[in-house]
């Protein structure tokens, strides 16, 4: 195997690795301005994104395709560490998109920010880990890839080294993260013991060839808990709120928009097989019918999903701080995403994937926007946003769109994703309908706190003249505020998000069609 053909399919990953190294190199040689370093990150992630989109079969970019057609969605051999699935590629695209938006927006961070190379370098490194997760086909490879991301994000959260809040957040994330990692590896070891392999495809095909039922259940139990850390499921979510709050807001945007989805996709990878092969009635490890592993896992995940969205929503209800409110909302959104795997059908996976895709634009961009307005001197409380909508209508409307999308109001991407997700749950019939009902009721509950922000922004008068007049981009405001606008990078990132929210909200077919096709392959291959 010549190196070229081996490296070809991994071009995006290699690109990111190179990018990381290059950024750190730049730091060494003394090029540290935000714009220059950030440009590298933007370029690298953007280019990688193009490659991935090309691999997904987007015709106009076909000349950029790096993976030979036959390798995508090929049936697993049972020994490879990696496999290219179109759903994995879509997740790669989602991850890259999140990083791209965050990097783009971060171009507008203060130019002399000392930590810029560290920030962007770790950002790209974390993304690299995420890309690896998306192509993982081996449990340990998967967990290690997650760790690449995790270790990078621990450092990313505390990268300023000056802010006690950020460091506290990094510490908390580290402790809980390390604990979870340990638990997931322990679970992996138990599954290895039960099946004699850590390859996911092999586990899927192992049939009734082995395993101690209790060992398998315990193994999956440890894995649920370990992965739940990343996916911020209740009750393993407590760190997330503090971290989202304490981390620099742009990092929070990355955590919420990007790295959290790693956990969800890991759930897809790990749990689809046991759910599917029992559902389809073939190759159960417990062919003697001792226990029905699939339904047990589905119910457990379903309970976690409902618990997560409900608790997340209830906790968000009374939040007074904007970032913490968004953090709780983010937790509840994870519950919706988990419905996808709990139902375990291709439509449900497609719905969850679309929800994840949407979340990048809704929640990620919302944090980016919060970071921007925080730079104007707006405080952390929701009440500090009084009058934002009337004084700065463009920003207000953009934020409103994101919140409405989170609440699932039609003609936004958030509506489409929830619609597809809950449709899929209903389509699966049986007790999955109750997941849809729970999800819908929760989204009704969530309206309370989203609407409250709208109310504050649009219906209440600002306490004082806080908002400089001027355009969203580079306007000239009073001197005591750093800038009248967001800066071009941030404005562009938010604009992309807003366009995506509306465009996909109105005509989802291209995105949805691709995701659905990918999900179908994913299920077909997994089964």
């Amino acid at each position, binding site marked *: 195997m010549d190196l070229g053909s081996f490296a070809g399919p991994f071009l995006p990953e290699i690109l990111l690795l190179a990018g990381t190294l290059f950024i750190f190199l730049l730091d060494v040689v003394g090029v540290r301005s935000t714009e220059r370093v950030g440009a590298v990150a933007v370029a690298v992630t953007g280019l990688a994104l193009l490659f991935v989109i090309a691999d997904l079969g987007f015709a106009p970019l076909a000349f950029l395709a790096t993976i030979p057609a036959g390798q995508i969605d090929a049936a697993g051999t049972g020994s490879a560490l990696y496999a290219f699935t179109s759903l994995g590629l879509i997740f790669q695209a989602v991850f890259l998109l999140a990083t791209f938006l965050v990097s783009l927006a971060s171009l507008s961070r203060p130019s002399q920010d000392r930590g810029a190379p560290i920030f962007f370098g770790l950002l790209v490194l974390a993304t690299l880990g995420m890309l690896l997760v998306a192509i993982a086909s081996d449990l340990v490879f998967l967990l290690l890839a997650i760790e690449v991301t995790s270790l990078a994000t621990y450092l990313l959260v505390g990268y300023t080294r000056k802010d006690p809040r950020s460091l506290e957040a990094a510490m908390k994330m580290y*402790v*809980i993260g390390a604990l979870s990692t340990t638990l997931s590896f322990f679970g992996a070891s138990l599954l290895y013991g039960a099946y004699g392999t850590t390859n996911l495809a092999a586990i899927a095909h192992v049939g009734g060839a082995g395993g101690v039922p209790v060992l398998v*259940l315990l193994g999956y*139990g440890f894995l649920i*808990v370990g992965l739940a850390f990343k996916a911020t499921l209740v009750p393993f979510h407590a760190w997330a709120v503090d971290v989202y709050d304490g981390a620099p807001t742009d990092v929070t945007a990355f955590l919420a928009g990007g790295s959290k989805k790693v956990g969800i996709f890991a759930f897809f990878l790990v749990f689809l097989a046991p759910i599917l092969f029992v559902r389809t009635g073939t190759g159960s490890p417990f062919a003697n019918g001792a226990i029905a592993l699939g339904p047990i896992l589905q119910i457990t995940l379903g309970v976690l999903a409902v618990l997560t969205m409900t*608790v997340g929503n209830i*906790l968000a209800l009374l939040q007074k701080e904007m970032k913490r409110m968004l953090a709780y909302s983010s937790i509840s959104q994870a519950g919706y995403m988990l419905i996808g795997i709990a139902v375990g059908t291709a439509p449900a996976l497609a719905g969850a994937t679309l929800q994840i895709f949407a979340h990048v634009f809704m929640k990620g961009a919302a944090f980016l926007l919060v970071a921007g307005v925080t730079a104007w001197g707006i405080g952390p409380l929701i009440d500090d946003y009084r009058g934002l909508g009337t004084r700065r209508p463009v920003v207000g409307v953009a934020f409103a769109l994101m919140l409405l999308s989170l609440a699932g109001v039609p003609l936004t991407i958030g509506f489409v994703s929830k619609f597809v997700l809950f449709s899929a749950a209903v389509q699966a019939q049986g007790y999955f309908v109750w997941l849809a009902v729970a999800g819908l009721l929760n989204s009704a509950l969530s309206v309370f706190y989203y609407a409250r922000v709208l109310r504050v922004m649009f219906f209440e008068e600002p306490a004082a003249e806080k908002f400089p007049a001027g355009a969203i981009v580079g306007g000239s405001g009073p001197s005591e505020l750093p800038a009248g606008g967001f800066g071009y990078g941030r404005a562009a990132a938010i604009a992309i998000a807003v366009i995506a929210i509306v465009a996909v909200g109105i005509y989802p077919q291209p995105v949805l069609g691709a995701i659905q096709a990918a999900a179908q392959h994913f299920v077909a291959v997994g089964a």
Partner: protein
Amino acid sequence: MAGLSGILEWAFLVPLLMVISFVVVGLAGTRLKRLEYGGWIAVLFAGAALVVGVLVAAAEMLSPGQYVNVQYTWFQLPPAAGTFPNGFRLVAGTLVDPISALMLLVVTVVGFLVMLYSIEYMHHDRGLARYYAELSLFLAAMTGLVIANNLFEFFLFWELVGVCSYFLIGFYYEKPSAASAAKEAFLVTRVGDVMFLLGIFLYFYTYALAGPGNGWAASGFVFTNGNQPFLAGAMGGNSTLLTVAGIMILGGAAGKSAQFPLHVWLPDAMEGPTTVSALIHAATMVAAGVYLLAVTSLFLGFTATDQLLIVAIGGFTTFFAATMAVVHSDIKRVIAYSTISQLGYMVLAVGAGFAMVGLFHLFTHAFFKALLFLAAGSVIHAIGTQDLFKMGGLRKPMRITAAAFAIGGLALAGIPPFAGFWSKDDILGGVYSQLGTHPLYWPFFLLAFAAVFLTAYYIFRAWFLAFSGDGPRDPTLPHAHEGSWVMQVPLIGLSALAVGSGLLIFWPNFQSLLLNGAGAAGIPPVFGPTDLALSGISVTLGVAGILLAWRLWGNGRVYVLPESSWAQPVRRLLLNRYYFKVGYDWIGQRGVYSVARAADFVDQFVIDGTVHGFERMFAALSERLRRIQSGVVSDYAAYVVAGLIAVFVLLLLVAPYLVTLVGGA
């Protein structure tokens, strides 16, 4: 005179003319100061309507028969299986027949005269354009009601006249009492209207389902002569339903015609201008209830139970209202009670099966009652008070008025040869003739008979109080004088009619009008004095009443009932109108309104409170749950471990159990 019958097709011109008058006066009235703010325009149109009305009546008299013309389909449903198998259609059209011709005559004649009288009587009031517009609309609605060719259309105009009445009673809307009386009138009649509406449904439904009625729904439920087969067919299985329908129609009629127990609104309706009282609340609109009963009895039919009920209501009201008229001191209210009482006679007649006799009384009553009101109005116009005890000796300055009132009073009291005698006597005679077959009519017949005495007494009590004696008892009253020709012409015209309209019965053409309208009633009516003994007794009673009135009140005397008299409680009862109004007010305010307030409380604090309770519950839950976010990372680790244990419990214990419950995926 075949040429004249062509006018029948144009009967709809009458309401149309008045609608035009309404629109013209309503829109342009305020700018036409010279024409009494459109008053003369209204008079002109009313005159034109009168001409058409008289022509229609004449044509109908010359060639009795009927003419149906469906002009416009409101809406229709296609035929299909179900309640209305042949489809369903609601139409608006005209039906000119003897009784509608008779009513048209009454309405246009009185309407024109009152309109003319108003020119001077209302001259000093504000809002005249509104007055004439509303009066025009009223005449349009009333004439439309008269020539309506189905119950639905009838109801439509019925409601419209009700609204006109509402606005005209409340004409002096700045007076709280007027505004209140208007509301009361509308509400009380509304109770009747609601019953009427149900009655319509019942008839529509009953006839539509009964064999011969199938085509009726498709044709728009129009009145057709000789509907006996309908009645017979429908009664085959639905006599209960028909009885209820009849009761509902009676309810509607009782509301409009102020019959017991829905009579309370009419005396209060005297808050409106006297002209309005004369036209609407004496001559025409209040008679619409009787007209409704007559039309129903002729075209649709009542069951025997219905008839007894109608007789009971009519007979009782006759006496009941007369007693209240005995004690009141407001001249208009006395006449108003008299109106209720006389309407009772008509209802009684229709109930006993003599619809046409009832209508004949309606015809004569319209003239002499309008006359009484206009005469009273003349007095009020002259001296500015309605209190009989302040008046006195007015016969000298107001000779024409005094004479007119006297003629009206004699007609009312049933003294021959005045109009009231002929019609009232026919009613009493008719009911008397039924007593053999319907012994249950006896008490109501006796009540009606007794009312003759009271009627004569109270109306002459009023006459003596107002016109006899040497001068006003209240010296502060302005000097009385007769009105101009504009007011005198209607008085004289109506006086002539009060004398002569009863005698019309001896004109064969007129009598044929009455006889030909009676096709369905079953009992051939007899007009003119038949039972001389009965007539003698009734006339004697009338004369006795007049004499008693003269004895107590004649020559300026004022009779004061001794404080210790046994009759004092009775007098108080009568003055308080049997406490009906108090009772109704109590139901309205203490009853319904209290319920409404209580419901409001429930709405705000129980229903909304529950919602807010949920809100608070979630808030409390949120507050509780927030505390787990302690900020100490060791706690978070503890949650992870606790979660781990929980997941194991779920995986190993709960989920397997649930799986057995739902039986796998």
